[in-house]
């Protein structure tokens, strides 16, 4: 229940008098006003630019729409076809889940590790930070896709290095067992974004906390577990949620590097959805897929948020969602 309701009930139980309610309601009204004032940029934008397209896509999910002619209502047909008749759909789901559950933890661990490494403030750390962030900057360009294909190609750098170690080369991109790992390594390579956020979070931890802990005789590990981790938890929550969402919606790299091949092992959900919309002009089917994805992501995100009350520490206190 909301704060106001709980407070009201508490007051009722304690039998407080009216004047207190009046002061509270004035403050609440002020809060509401201020809240909506600061919220207004997003709210207005939402109503003008986002709400209508979202509702439209929801409606489209129940129609057959080839973009060129008006949509025709087909009720649950898209969902039925998707879940029961589409082999590619399930391959896509499998590929996406595999990716999320490997790439996301990998990326976050590397990002956190490197952020901690860089936080020590030794010399040249600015240069290192730029170097570690550089891969993320090249992001989703055509050039990086070509390069990545070259590196993992049959005669590419990776096989060359393996050959130097007398290990036989692997057809990374063409073998259905390994193709997805080219994308997972790509995701891990581009850990710059969560790393930067961890860094910013680390910087925000007041140094006095470490100082007083040192005075109390705490060692490095104790400081990490007792100060760093707890103070980082809001940022960890953020990165975890965002990376899960991004993982489920992974598109550009799969589109540019592997195009979903071979055998649909890298045909991520968002890519398959895009192909169904723009290659075969099945916008309705694609919208149905999108809304199923939204439900899945919402489910996992809710899970993480639910659990967050057990492990996330906010300096400004627990806030009800």
């Amino acid at each position, binding site marked *: 229940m909301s704060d106001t309701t709980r407070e009201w009930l508490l007051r009722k139980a304690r039998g407080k008098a009216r004047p207190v309610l009046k002061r509270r309601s004035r403050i609440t009204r002020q809060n509401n006003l201020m809240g909506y004032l600061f919220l207004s940029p997003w709210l207005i934008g939402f109503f003008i630019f986002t709400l209508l397209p979202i509702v439209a896509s929801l409606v489209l999910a129940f129609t057959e729409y080839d973009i060129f002619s008006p949509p025709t209502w087909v009720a649950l047909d898209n969902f039925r076809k998707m879940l029961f008749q589409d082999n590619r759909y399930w391959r896509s789901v499998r590929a996406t889940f595999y990716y999320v559950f490997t790439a996301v933890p990998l990326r976050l661990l590397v990002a956190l590790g490197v952020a901690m490494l860089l936080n020590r403030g030794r010399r040249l750390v600015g240069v290192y930070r730029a170097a570690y962030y550089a891969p993320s900057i090249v992001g989703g360009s055509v050039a990086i896709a070509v390069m990545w294909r070259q590196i993992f190609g049959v005669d590419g750098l990776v096989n060359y290095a393996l050959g130097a170690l007398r290990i036989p080369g692997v057809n990374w991109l063409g073998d259905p067992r390994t193709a997805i790992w080219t994308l997972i390594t790509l995701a891990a390579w581009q850990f710059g974004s969560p790393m930067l956020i961890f860094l910013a979070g680390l910087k925000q931890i007041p140094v006095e906390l470490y100082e007083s802990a040192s005075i109390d005789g705490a060692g490095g590990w104790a400081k990490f577990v007792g100060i760093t981790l707890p103070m980082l938890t809001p940022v960890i929550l953020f990165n975890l949620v965002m990376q899960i969402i991004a993982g489920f919606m992974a598109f550009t790299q799969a589109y540019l590097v592997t195009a979903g091949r071979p055998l649909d092992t890298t045909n991520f959900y968002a890519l398959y959805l895009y192909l169904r*919309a723009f290659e075969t002009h099945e916008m309705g089917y694609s919208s149905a897929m999108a809304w199923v994805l939204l439900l899945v992501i919402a489910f996992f995100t809710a899970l993480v948020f639910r659990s967050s009350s057990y492990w996330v520490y906010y300096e400004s206190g627990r806030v009800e969602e």
Partner: protein
Amino acid sequence: MSVVGTLRSPARLSKRNRDRIGSAIYHLIVVSSCFLMIYPILWMFASSLKGPSEIWTRLSSLIPKVPTFENYVNGWAGFGGITFAVFFKNSLFFATMATIGAVASSACVAYAFAKIRFVGRGFWFTVMLLTLMLPVQVLLIPQYIVFSKLNWINTFRPLLIPRFFGNAFFIFLMMQFIRGLPNELDEAAEIDGCSKIGIFFRIVLPLIKPALITAAIFSFYWTWEDFLTPLIYLNEPRLYTISLAIRSFSDPSSTTDWGAIFAMSSLSLVPVFVIFIAFQRYLVQGISTTGLKG
């Protein structure tokens, strides 16, 4: 390790030497992993200096046998008289304006969600997060129709104006940082008679600078490389952004001038890098809350 042993043994390394070795190892590990990180970028840059016969024949080498600038010349020429100077200008304009808009508006909204208790806060936060979870591909057509009715096609308006209305990712990011600030700060300010607006500008904003900078860096580079929305909304080549222009070089069904793509991609990394390096020192500053102790 026993205290007795350390006091007695002369062969023990002095702390300074141990530090030096530790530092050297640290730098060694970091430098070699940095090299791994940037190797593909170095490769791209090296390839941009290779002539067409060399690019695909001597793949792994980072040093071109016959360095040449022809890729830069060819690439810069662009298409039919529209050079990359135009594309750079467009991209710079787009990325800068979008960043200012996104960061400023997101900060306001984040403040509301993080610090103000108002009716419906939880509801709107959930809605906002949900908007992040819908793949943009299915919104393309309906959004296009909306903008088409507004007559904004073939301008930068559909790309820029929505960015002045908050970005869910940045909002959430800044929220987490604002929540990391102790409540005592605002309470002290409120007692001193400061309004919510004052608190926002005078206390919260300066303290979440790392988050603002981070958001700015992200926003810049995301808009810099976005090609899907420019593709849909910018029809005329003279409006193209760099990301779109570079894409237009490639055509899998015939020859692609990869040298030009690598050259222009290398060039297009420069502004993003510059922004990053210029702003990253703000990330370095931590906060000092000595003001609280008193």
